[in-house]
């Protein structure tokens, strides 16, 4: 065939030129089931001429040739251009063989023979998992997979395995039932080297966990979890636990003991319990809703308890290393009282409690301590807390004295973990200080503080930063350049979602950092200018609209905000967006 090709083109060209009537030569690919050749032919040639070329090239008689293009059979009387055959296109060719008609009769005879021959490579409907596993193990190097996974051997035979139900819920329940009735199954699955392999790869696990939308939701509400997930050491430990039930039990026992120690701390226990329930319940329900045999269910329950030690230890340093003036600090450091909402006057210990914790975790970066996070959580859920704290009389006087004494204020603020380790930010803040303090007394700014959505947004930023820290530790210091003024913060900040952050961390880190800076500074410093909308965060701008939307029943604040930002505050358009994006 190759020889043909070498010899002919010269002839073809020579023949074509005199025949073609000033047509350009186009190259058409002619494809047979077994072969493919490129034929040069005049653009306006007829099918007959084309077939002549082809018969030379393919060594077949012209009347044996059947040319097909775009589903049409090219008849001799047609021209190539009539069918739209242009340069570079492919025409299919079938060469009729004389004894083709005999094939139709012989297919049935040969099919039965081949069916028997073929049955060894596929499994019949009478599902034999062992046979498929057998055929698999001969090819695959891994050990024979247990019952569940042997279905991979022949997906078509899954129906036979009893998983034929197309209804996923049913299927899931079935699996769960099977698991419940057969505890061996779970350990079997665990022992499967495939699963073990999977579980020893923390990146994969994290990806899998984070890809689950329920987990994502959970992580938004409880940043500790994302913290936990992003800590590879912790992940590995947790996976070890999941694999080894005995170890898990031991760990649980330790947890319980540690927890019981906490009860003796005033105020701490209540908050702890509340937070525990906050996290534990959604975790478990999310885990339960997943695939029953999903080892993540164990992981889910475990990760929660896994987070316990880091939290409980942080509670240890209760004594207040901060002097009374420091009790105020900047509102976003989350100075919310723990558990005691209305007791304002002499609550220095409880107010400083969280700060005490934060002191111990200084250097972890912004908002990184779980204690801080849970506080922010609380605050965002309970704006009342913030309100109360800020309106406390002693708070007021504190603010005033701070405003009058910039030295003190700067000291306080600089010590705040928010700015710890960020000298540039400190500089920035210092310069903004007087304005900032003014703002503190401005009720408008205060209302922003109490805006739960604002707090949520801040939390999300913080989550993103956390992820950043673990994903790209080298990135953090280099990003602290103080931000570029006027970087539009807008929509991407509140919508920053920690779940897909492994992929987005690489793209948005600088934006996040800058946005955080810009947002805060603008919020406080720019607000004095008559509340100009341009310097306020979208949440503040759209506050009225957000409230309207939530009154209408759109409870997903994040989606509302996104929609509002996208439509520039137009409620009707935002509603359409929301409705259009409702998951079906």
């Amino acid at each position: 065939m190759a020889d043909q090709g070498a010899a002919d083109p010269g002839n073809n060209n020579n023949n074509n030129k005199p025949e073609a009537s000033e047509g350009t030569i186009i190259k058409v690919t002619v494809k047979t089931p077994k072969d493919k050749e490129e034929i040069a032919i005049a653009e306006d040639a007829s099918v007959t001429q084309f077939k002549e070329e082809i018969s030379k090239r393919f060594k077949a008689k012209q009347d044996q040739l059947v040319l097909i293009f775009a589903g049409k059979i090219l008849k001799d009387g047609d021209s190539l251009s009539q069918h739209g055959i242009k340069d570079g296109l492919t025409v299919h060719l079938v060469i009729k063989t004389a004894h083709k008609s005999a094939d139709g009769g012989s297919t049935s005879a040969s099919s039965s023979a081949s069916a028997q021959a073929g049955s060894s490579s596929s499994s019949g409907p009478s599902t034999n998992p062992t046979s498929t596993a057998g055929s698999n193990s001969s090819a695959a190097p891994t050990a024979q997979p247990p019952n569940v996974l042997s279905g991979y051997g022949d997906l078509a035979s899954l129906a036979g395995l009893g998983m034929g139900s197309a209804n996923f819920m049913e299927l899931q329940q079935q699996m769960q039932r099977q698991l419940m009735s057969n505890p061996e199954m779970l350990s079997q699955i665990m022992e499967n080297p495939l699963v073990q392999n999977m579980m020893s790869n923390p990146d994969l696990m994290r990806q899998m966990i984070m890809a689950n939308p329920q987990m994502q939701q959970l992580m938004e509400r409880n940043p500790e979890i994302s913290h936990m997930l992003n800590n590879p050491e912790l992940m590995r430990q947790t996976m070890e636990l999941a694999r080894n039930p005995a170890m898990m039990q031991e760990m649980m026992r330790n947890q319980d003991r540690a927890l019981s120690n906490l009860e003796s701390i005033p105020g701490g226990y209540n908050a702890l319990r509340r937070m525990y329930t906050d996290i534990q319940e959604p975790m478990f329900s999310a885990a339960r809703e997943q695939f029953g045999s999903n080892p993540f269910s164990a992981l889910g329950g475990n990760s929660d308890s896994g987070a316990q030690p880091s939290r409980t230890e942080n509670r240890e340093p209760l004594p207040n290393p901060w002097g009374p003036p420091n009790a105020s600090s900047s509102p976003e450091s989350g100075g919310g009282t723990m558990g005691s909402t209305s007791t304002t006057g002499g609550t220095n210990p409880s107010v400083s409690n969280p700060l005490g914790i934060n002191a111990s975790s200084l250097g972890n970066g912004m908002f990184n301590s779980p204690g801080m996070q849970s506080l922010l959580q609380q605050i965002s859920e309970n704006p009342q807390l913030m309100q109360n704290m800020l309106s406390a009389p002693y708070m007021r006087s504190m603010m005033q004295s701070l405003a009058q004494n910039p030295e003190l204020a700067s000291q306080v603020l600089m010590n705040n973990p928010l700015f710890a380790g960020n000298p540039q930010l400190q500089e920035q803040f210092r310069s903004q200080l007087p304005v900032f303090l003014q703002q503190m007394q401005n009720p408008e700014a205060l209302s922003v503080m109490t805006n739960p959505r604002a707090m949520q947004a801040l939390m999300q930023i913080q989550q993103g930063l956390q992820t950043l820290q673990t994903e790209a530790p080298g990135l953090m210091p280099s990003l602290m350049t103080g931000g570029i003024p006027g970087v539009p913060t807008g929509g991407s900040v509140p919508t920053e979602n920690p779940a897909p952050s492994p992929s987005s961390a690489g793209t948005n880190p600088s934006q996040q950092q800058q946005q955080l800076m810009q947002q805060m500074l603008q919020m406080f410093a720019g607000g004095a200018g008559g509340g100009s909308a341009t310097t306020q965060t979208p949440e503040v701008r759209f506050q009225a609209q957000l409230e309207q939307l939530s009154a209408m029943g759109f409870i997903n604040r994040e989606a509302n905000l996104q929609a509002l930002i996208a439509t520039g505050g137009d409620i009707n358009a935002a509603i359409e967006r929301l409705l259009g994006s409702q998951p079906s």
Partner: protein
Amino acid sequence: MDFTTRHNIQLYIYDLSRGMARNLSPIMLGKQLDGIWHTAIVAYGEEFFFGGEGISSCPPGGTMLGPPDTVVDLGETEVTEDIFMEYLSSLGESTYRGDRYRLFEHNCNTFSNEVAQFLTGRPIPSYITDLPSEVLSTPFGQMLRPILDSIHIAPPGGHVINGGRNM
């Protein structure tokens, strides 16, 4: 005299995972796959597909998979049945022998795509042909690759055209 019979060509799409892929793929692969697609071309009253045994045919919807999940009309062709059978037998002797089956690179969907282009000039929907690369681009898919490569999908219920070439 210019009358040419036109035959309607359809693509039968089956989800081999029976809905599991739609639900599990986000967890397992990290991306949403709506199904694990197996396709077959239905023409001239018969269903043709490529599997571990080679090119097979059966009455439409006659494999163990049952009726298709989706049917796509690929258009019409002037190709007659005997030309088509000739074409198929040539294919079955060359690139679509039974032993040429590769789950990721040369599978039933590759066959359906090629036949569809032969008959109608148009390929099959890209979400089907993109499936192997979608799966392989996830870490999970990469991990499972050695196992999956050894799988030959051959829905029982068809008889092989030009069989006897399982070498």
